């Protein structure tokens, strides 16, 4: 016979060891040893048991939103210790580890408590909304404590009744530093001021691009990418194009004509319809394309990546879709959520000059002036080039137009679908 008569026991022993390892690991798995994993089981938190009004005479109290209590510092510390963790839904930075580390150090220094920050990154923020909505309908606590995603998702969240009110709160004093136009009291506050979709182009190869409509130039045949239909990336591009063409983004029929124009005139130049940043970057850096439409932050990334010809085309009207911080209803750790929000808004975090990160990562984390108090924090190594990639405070105040999100959402459903159907999606 060809096979051995007795099965060698090695693989059996191997299986047993493997299995034992994992079962043991699994048993210990529900309470994770790693500091960056949240041990919470999602039970609704209880805050400081005794109302502090009686003790108010000796210690100053802070009014803490969401739990709606006046608490002394000691009570706040106790509550934070009890919460022990906070989960933030945001996109992932390459310096995630540093961010988490810095926040945990901050909490330790300020409140003397060790906590765990979990950064749950996703590039499809609507997936957060799905999870939040499902949790809400299922009667479970929210899977996230802080949402830090684009403004339009906040608007969606509002429409679905998922957003909690927390401003003003004594735990978020940095709210005062932020311009009014960058807040939606009582529900959310921006941590970005400069995020808008634009076009990044190679100044050496295509110096003739001065406005969005120039993407239709026949010299750019096969050298352009446009965003894929569906989300705010494509939405932002078409908003910019519409304003150049004098069309109203709230009117779906007008937007359809804008889409038609783009497909007819820019279409032949498009190498690929994509919203995938690495794809665009690879195409751009290799010279296969000369211009792509995406968020303005990419221009900075390219610049720090060594591509000095990468230039940002700023649309004539800037419709920003900035990242906003908000707290979902039934968040398991509302106090730490507010602490995080306050920390994220502080100038030292918006301009993380002292963090152990490189310039590229700095430019990922720093998203513009939220108010006058931030202006002085621009680091020395960037003072000269900063205005090329970030707008000034005046520009933010005057050039940035707010988007009527409800009207946008209603209208976009129609013309985004139309855009999709035109390219076969």
């Amino acid at each position: 016979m060809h096979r051995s008569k007795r099965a060698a026991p090695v693989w059996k022993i191997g299986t047993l060891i493997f299995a034992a390892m994992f079962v043991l690991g699994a048993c210990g798995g529900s309470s994770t040893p790693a500091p960056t994993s949240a041990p919470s089981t999602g039970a609704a938190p209880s805050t400081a048991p005794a109302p502090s009004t009686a003790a108010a005479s000796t210690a100053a109290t802070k009014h803490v939103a969401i739990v709606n209590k006046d608490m002394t510092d000691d009570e706040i510390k106790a509550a934070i210790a009890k919460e022990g963790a906070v989960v933030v839904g945001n996109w992932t930075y390459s310096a995630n580890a540093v961010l988490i580390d810095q926040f945990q150090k901050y909490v330790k220094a300020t409140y003397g408590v060790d906590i765990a920050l979990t950064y749950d990154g996703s590039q499809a923020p609507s997936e957060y909304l799905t999870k939040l909505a499902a949790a809400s309908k299922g009667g479970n606590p929210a899977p996230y404590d802080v949402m830090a995603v684009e403004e339009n998702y906040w608007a969606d969240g509002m429409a679905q009744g998922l957003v909690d009110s927390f401003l003003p709160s004594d735990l978020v004093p940095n709210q005062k530093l932020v311009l009014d136009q960058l807040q939606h009291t009582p529900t959310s506050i921006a941590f970005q001021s400069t995020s808008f979709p634009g076009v990044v182009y190679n100044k050496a190869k295509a110096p003739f691009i001065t406005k969005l409509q120039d993407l239709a130039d026949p010299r750019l045949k096969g050298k352009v990418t446009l965003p894929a239909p569906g989300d705010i990336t494509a939405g932002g591009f078409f908003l910019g194009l519409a304003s150049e063409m004098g069309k109203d983004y709230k009117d779906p029929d007008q937007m359809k004509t804008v889409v038609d124009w783009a497909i007819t005139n820019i279409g032949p130049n498009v190498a690929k319809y994509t919203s995938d940043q690495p794809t665009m970057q690879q195409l751009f850096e290799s010279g296969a394309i000369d211009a792509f439409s995406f968020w303005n932050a990419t221009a900075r990334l390219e610049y720090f990546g060594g591509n000095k010809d990468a230039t940002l085309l700023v649309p004539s009207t800037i419709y920003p879709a900035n990242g906003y911080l908000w707290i979902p209803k039934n968040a398991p750790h509302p106090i730490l959520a507010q602490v995080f929000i306050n920390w994220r808004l502080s100038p030292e975090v918006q301009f993380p000059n002292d963090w152990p990160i490189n310039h590229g990562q700095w430019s990922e984390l720093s998203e513009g002036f939220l108010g006058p108090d931030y202006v002085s924090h621009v680091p020395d190594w960037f003072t000269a080039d900063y205005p090329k990639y970030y707008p000034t405070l005046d520009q933010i105040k005057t050039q940035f137009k707010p988007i009527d999100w409800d009207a946008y959402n209603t209208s976009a459903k129609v013309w985004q679908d139309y855009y999709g159907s035109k390219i076969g999606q």
Partner: protein
Amino acid sequence: MTGDTSSIAPLRPAPLAVRRSGVGVGRLRTIALLLPAILLALLFLYYPLVFIIQMSFTQGSSFLSPTGPITTLMNYALVVGRYLPNLLVTLQLALFATIVDLVFGFPFAYIFVRKVRYRTAVRALMVFPMFGALYIAFGMRFILLPGGPATPLLQALGIASTDALFSLPSVVFAMSIFTFPFMVLNIGTALGNVDPTLEEAAACLGARPWQTFRRILLPMTRAGTVAGMLTVFGWSIGTFAEPLLLGSANEQRALAWTVYQRGVVQTDYGLSTAMGVVLLGVAFVVTYLSLRYSRGALVE
């Protein structure tokens, strides 16, 4: 030899290895063996599928909205109407990937099983693409874009880099190398049960290699071949990374990507779940028919 039979173990009626079902214990045993698998599928696919089907009859994101779901049949109308080309592209891509895998995978499996001694190295390298379609795409872009090693060849042939990169062959290539191990390991398992002396006998009797292949190997590895093809096909209709990253506008229509786009990015749960249901239906029909018409190769 004494007449003492006490040292001989009493013979029990020999239990048959092949059960005839129909009565009591046999049936029960069958059910018991199948129960874990059925439970897993039931609890984690088919019961959740109920939600999916419910969602597919609602409009947009209304299923999870506070105002409650709005019922509609529009989603299915759209799937068979506007998105029919998407379905066809999906099937086309999957079919091509399956054929490529079969044509290249069978010889690979044969050589692997019969001739190769350094099996570990081959197995380890063969599964590399399975580590991530994303990485395949990255790598292919490096190779095919200007500045990459393939540029001189492409220029000589007069093909633009992006045309070569975002094309049907590109997508099919990436899909095939991802699912290659599915085919090879299934065929290899079947080949492992084929006695090599049979091939030698055939050769001795004067059969040429092609005849040996057609009349000995192919019939004897039917189970593995059918299994491999089914797995590759089924997996390929559900994959979206390759069509997304390497496809032109035509390949980007692959239904799995549209499902992701609509369901995850645009939260149009109604439409995306309707597409999911249709895809499932197609997968089920293809699987069943393959089993049926392969004349008992895999499952009787």
